[in-house]
């Protein structure tokens, strides 16, 4: 059911865009927040891909990272906590021609919105889904999130998080019909950009977990990963995510074929090693938006059909 109108096309001008074309209102994240880097990479991606600001929709829930759409000069939807994916599904079912980006935090996606995360993954609707995972609730001031490391102290679990952290990659890869799962880190901008680009170009639900530092509440959580490159393993493959030059910066590398789901699940569930790269991609999986396409009718055609339908119930 494309509701793209010719009239909208007619006033669409051919032009190139720069990153500045996508800048929204003044950014008000904390200084040093990892979200900045994701914002910049996204703006750069939009410019490089030539996405029209008016044909791009950024949807978010509630949380620090969910301010994201305000900082973009595109159409944005800053919805309610945990429900961004439902709104994005509605946008995409109604307007398949729009480019849709979803930005969620770990509380948003993995806790209050976990049900939608599971189902949206299975729907496999064409959109880019960014999980900005700082492993803590920030906006509500340091409560344990599902991805908070076990033992990490917060205001709600002051003796330390009781349970092992939920692994969003492992969870997503476990969902039927998952078609794209990648992990990147905000402090490796080249990899971040390459990942966003691959996610955007993927036809389907592209789930990207972005490891993201919260300088205010969890400055220590990702310290080692940031300072010691060897703690991070880069997944390499011709069909994977290849940022220029990074293979020489990260000594710790591993070849992983992203068409191998079993291997992807194994690598994702390994809690001993943090990995960046493309875990899994399969563009042949069914896409709900594709399956639900309908041809639109004009008002007159609709009346004609409706009269036929009413005639079946005529007395």
């Amino acid at each position, binding site marked *: 059911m494309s509701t793209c109108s010719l009239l909208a096309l007619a006033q669409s001008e051919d032009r190139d865009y720069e990153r500045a074309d996508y800048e929204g209102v003044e950014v008000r994240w904390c200084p040093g927040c990892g979200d*900045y880097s994701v914002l910049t990479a996204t703006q750069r991606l939009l410019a490089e891909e030539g996405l029209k600001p008016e044909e791009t929709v950024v949807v978010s829930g509630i949380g620090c990272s969910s301010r994201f759409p305000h900082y973009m000069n595109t159409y944005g939807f800053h919805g309610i906590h945990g429900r961004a994916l439902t709104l994005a599904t509605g946008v995409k079912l109604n307007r398949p021609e729009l480019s849709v980006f979803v930005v969620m935090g770990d509380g948003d996606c993995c806790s209050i919105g976990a049900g939608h995360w599971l189902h949206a993954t299975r729907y496999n609707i064409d959109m880019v889904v960014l999980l900005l995972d700082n492993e803590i609730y920030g906006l509500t001031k340091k409560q344990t999130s599902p991805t908070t490391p076990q033992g990490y102290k917060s205001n709600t679990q002051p003796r330390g998080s009781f349970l092992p952290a939920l692994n969003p990659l492992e969870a997503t890869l476990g969902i039927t019909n998952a078609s794209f799962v990648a992990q990147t880190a905000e402090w490796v901008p080249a990899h971040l950009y390459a990942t966003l680009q691959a996610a955007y170009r993927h036809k389907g639900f592209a789930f990207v977990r972005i490891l993201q530092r919260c300088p205010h509440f969890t400055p220590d959580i990702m310290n080692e990963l940031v300072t010691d490159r060897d703690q991070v393993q880069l997944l390499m493959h011709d*069909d994977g995510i290849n940022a220029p030059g990074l293979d020489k910066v990260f000594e710790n590398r591993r070849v992983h074929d992203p068409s191998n789901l079993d291997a992807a699940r194994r690598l994702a569930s390994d809690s001993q090693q943090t990995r960046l790269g493309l875990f899994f991609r399969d563009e042949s999986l069914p896409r709900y938006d594709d399956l639900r396409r309908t041809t639109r009718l004009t008002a007159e055609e609709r009346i004609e059909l409706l009269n036929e339908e009413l005639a079946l119930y005529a007395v």
Partner: protein
Amino acid sequence: MPSDEMVRQALEAVSGPREAFMSAVKVAVDQVESYLDANTGPEEAKPERAASELGRFAEGRIDPQRFAALTGEHEPLDDRSQEVLEEALEVLRALVKKGDENFLVHLEEGDSLVDRVEAALAASGRAFGAAEAVERIRTGGDAQTARQSFTGGNPPGRWSRAERRLAPPLVVSVPGSALDVEGMGRLLEGNIRIVLVVDGPAPPAALVPLMTPGVFVLQTSDSKELARLSDAAGPAIAALLPDTCAGFVHDPLGGPTLGQRLTVGEIPDAKTVRMLGTMTTWRQAEALSQLAALKSASEAVALPSANGKSGEPMEEPAPADRLAAWLLDQANLTDVDTAS
């Protein structure tokens, strides 16, 4: 297989872009009608229109006069603009009425393929012109200039990038003797989809000249293969031919190297070709040997590489260049003011 059945399958293979194009035309029909309805006729007709829109549940409950007063201003159109809008609407309606016929071209022997394809696209392209006219009038433009955008055909060369993305697909039934793609390259832009259903003896490698890095090109004798078109990105052309012709597919999504993009089946012997229509045996043989050359080139670079399953080995620039490139990349991304 009867050719009607092949045409049906070809239409099916382009159902996505067909529906998208028709849907866009239909949406525009409703919008133009509604715009005309709202901006023609006397101001006094507004309540009547409001009453009609509100429907019977509102009868006696909502006063259309008051309701109409709440809603948008009425900007009456001048007669000339109204006339042009109505003509544009007629163009759009005619396309709706034509339905699948918009996407079908039937060639006879001696017809020029490229001319007929361009003419058919120009006819469907009137939809874009009509929409442009509407937009011009709505933004206060001159009616006479607006009208020019849809009088006559509107060939793809005049379409905007956005319009090319919504290009109407075409299924062309063509006798083998008319399968001359000379000049066709310039029509392959945006999301255009052209399927040639070829009847009778045909040049064996007719589509080879159309292969450029961004164009999906398919030659096959198996109509099931046409389904691949729905996954193609960018412009695409396919031919359904007799099995005496070469079979190959060039898919830009395969990867950056020719080896990743091109798959070639059996290549027929150049000695078997004979003069067909305007196509000399030499030209046909040239296309065949070009295909053979591409095939061997692609196989040469498709050797497995050290860190992947196949494909060209990664380029290995000097370490200093790599570091510089990486640093540049980093710089480009960290130049925001994070202290705000």
